[in-house]
């Protein structure tokens, strides 16, 4: 599982406070902990109203002062993402574009001939599509653009948009989003299927159980990348176990070594 570590995000109250108070130690500490627990990318999202780019630079510099783990540059504004790439010491993940407006035309030319990866959300100017067919239509449009700019499938992460379980349609559950995942997996096996796992459990009690159940089903449908908290031990263990069960971890080698490394199942 490719882990995009989610904790440095100004929409999380404790992180927003650290940003407001210029608490360098907080940013560094969270970055280090996430990197040490095996994050693939450290997501950095300012989520401030004014001075977003400057805030991103401040956060990225702090993260890079404690770890070499690549940065996931996170803003709903594609131009801000593009402008922040230069702050990063090495290629990471541009998070994110979508079918909305000119986001793709802003981002794709800049990353075309680089090693940067990109997260693309399956929404467009019509909103967040309600049906699998409509999300796949957005996916196809994004992939056509990627081909145009020569961005290989393996550099693309698709977020099919995970929405809260508790307001899904009757009799549907999460079948629609799983259908989108399976479609992507079968048509573009090299594309990474991603998304923010914890979105699934909004407004429900004992969210971590819902998150874990979702991870199992999503992994089975092809999810191999996730925006998540790498420090949540139980979720990490569930992911390793589920991956082993679908044949991605022969002899449970990764499961056992992750356990030995204290990623899950042990009090650190």
């Amino acid at each position: 599982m490719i882990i995009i570590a989610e904790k440095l995000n100004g929409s999380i109250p404790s992180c927003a406070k650290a940003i407001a108070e210029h608490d360098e130690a907080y940013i560094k500490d969270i970055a280090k902990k996430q990197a040490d627990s095996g994050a693939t990318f450290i997501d950095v999202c300012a989520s401030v109203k004014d001075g977003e780019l400057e805030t991103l630079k401040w956060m990225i510099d702090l993260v890079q002062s404690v770890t070499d783990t690549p940065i996931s540059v996170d803003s709903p504004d594609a131009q801000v993402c593009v402008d922040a790439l230069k702050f990063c010491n090495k290629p990471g993940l541009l998070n994110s574009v979508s079918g909305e407006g000119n986001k793709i035309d802003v981002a794709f030319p800049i990353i075309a001939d680089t090693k940067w990866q990109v997260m693309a959300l399956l929404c467009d100017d019509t909103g967040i599509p309600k049906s699998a067919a409509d999300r796949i239509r957005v996916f196809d449009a994004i992939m056509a653009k990627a081909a145009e700019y020569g961005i290989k499938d393996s550099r693309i992460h698709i977020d099919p948009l995970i929405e809260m379980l508790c307001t899904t349609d009757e009799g549907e559950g999460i079948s629609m989003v799983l259908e989108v995942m399976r479609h992507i997996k079968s048509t573009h096996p090299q594309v990474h299927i991603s998304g923010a796992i914890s979105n699934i459990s909004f407004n429900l009690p004992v969210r971590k159980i819902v998150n874990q159940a979702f991870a199992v089903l999503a992994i089975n449908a092809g999810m191999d990348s996730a925006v998540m908290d790498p420090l949540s031990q139980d979720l990490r263990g569930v992911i390793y176990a589920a991956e082993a069960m679908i044949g991605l971890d022969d002899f449970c080698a990764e499961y056992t070594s992750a356990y030995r490394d204290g990623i899950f199942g042990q009090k650190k």
Partner: protein
Amino acid sequence: MSKIQEIATLVENGKVKLIEAAVQEAVEEGVDPTALLNDGMIAAMGVVGAKFQANEIFVPEMLVAAKTMKKGVEVLKPFLAGDSVGKNGKYIIGTVAGDLHDIGKNLVALMIESAGFEVIDLGVDVPAEKFVEAVKANPDAKLVGASALLTTTMDSLANTVKVLIDAGVKSQVKIMVGGAPVTQEFADSIGADAYTPDAGAAAVKAVELIA
């Protein structure tokens, strides 16, 4: 238990499958349809909203209660005087320009409807001008609700409120705002009439604002 109480309990507990037969039975027994609506269902949704605000129930429980009420109202409608449903007037709602999030907005719309309003839902990514047009096209609308989920669309929310105020519609409607990054302080700073943190609170506030 009186029939009205029985209906209220069914709504409160989200008994979707039982509500239609129960409302039908109550009407046949001669219970006043308007009382069934106001003292039964709308009152029950008030309780549901309060419980949600107090963290006693969860979103899906609120959702299913509202759906139960909707089903009950469908059965009741033919027996009601024309203006009983939506007796509190029209409520115009939408997610502001640049923001595509609709789950929270839809929950608010559902609770507002359950509180006796006729909801006009403009959808997502709604330009400020479209809010103004909707207010002008609906002289009987008394409230507008605008939602923004992203920090980056809070400016759009501010603009929406400004455009509404500049268009001079404040003599007709009051403006409510909400969404994850929105606070009372922010609502005050942009000139909104009210901020509510959740759908239950929004329904209570809406009734209060037109009183």
